[in-house]
């Protein structure tokens, strides 16, 4: 996954792109068979021991989900950790240092 985190006026802006098919379970493949549902259900971000972001997603979120949020109380150089789990129990994780703007 790709994460961009930057801080300006004490507000940290986070943007992320998570490679994931986000299959709705309602799409048919070329042979006409239904592709089983497979989508990210939860995304969590932590910084300095605090959970600063928690989202629940459904199959209505676009393929390769893009998520953006803002939070307070971090400083440049702090690490932001992001993790996700999906409907099959698979998971992923990424990290980024918060850059000064």
């Amino acid at each position, binding site marked *: 996954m790709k*994460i961009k985190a930057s801080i300006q006026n004490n507000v940290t802006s986070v943007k992320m792109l998570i490679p994931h098919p986000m299959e709705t379970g309602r799409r048919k493949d070329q042979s006409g068979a239904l592709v089983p549902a497979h989508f990210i*259900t939860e995304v969590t971000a932590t910084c300095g021991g605090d959970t600063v*972001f928690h989202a629940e997603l459904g199959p*209505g*979120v676009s393929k390769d989900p893009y998520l953006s*949020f*803002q*939070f307070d*109380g971090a400083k440049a150089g702090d690490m932001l950790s992001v993790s996700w789990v999906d409907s099959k129990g698979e998971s992923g994780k990424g990290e*980024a240092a918060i850059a000064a703007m």
Partner: protein
Amino acid sequence: MGISRRDFCRTVAGSAASVAVLSMMPGTLLAKWSDKAFTANELDAAIAAKYGSQPIEDSTAIEIKAPEIAENGAFVPVTVSTTIPGVTNLSIFTPANFNPLVASFDVLPRMKPDVSFRMRMAKTSNVIVIAQAGGKLYRATREVKVTIGGCGG
């Protein structure tokens, strides 16, 4: 417009890390996913499953930034923000989708009630945002027209 590669943050996504996360990830996190709300097929049922049945007040303090005409229903950029004090959750619904609940964001203490993401829209429909604050529910609605792509490349 060019984004320098140097601006990209260092990312770690090794398989070892993934395994570690999987084992660290408490089962409660998975169980917590609001399955009833996400699998509901009707808007009202999805809202009720998410928040319980209670009155919803229309609010102008919720802003939905979304295109008037979506370039493509597979990637509709949406930004949701609110000035309602004490908001703890922002959820986005669209009634025309098979599952109306699209995403639900908890507004944690350090977080701003301001999120962006990209959603799928099956056809022209409303984007409905419910904000939860102090046990009350607030709602804003915005229509997005969805057309089918063709000669725009």
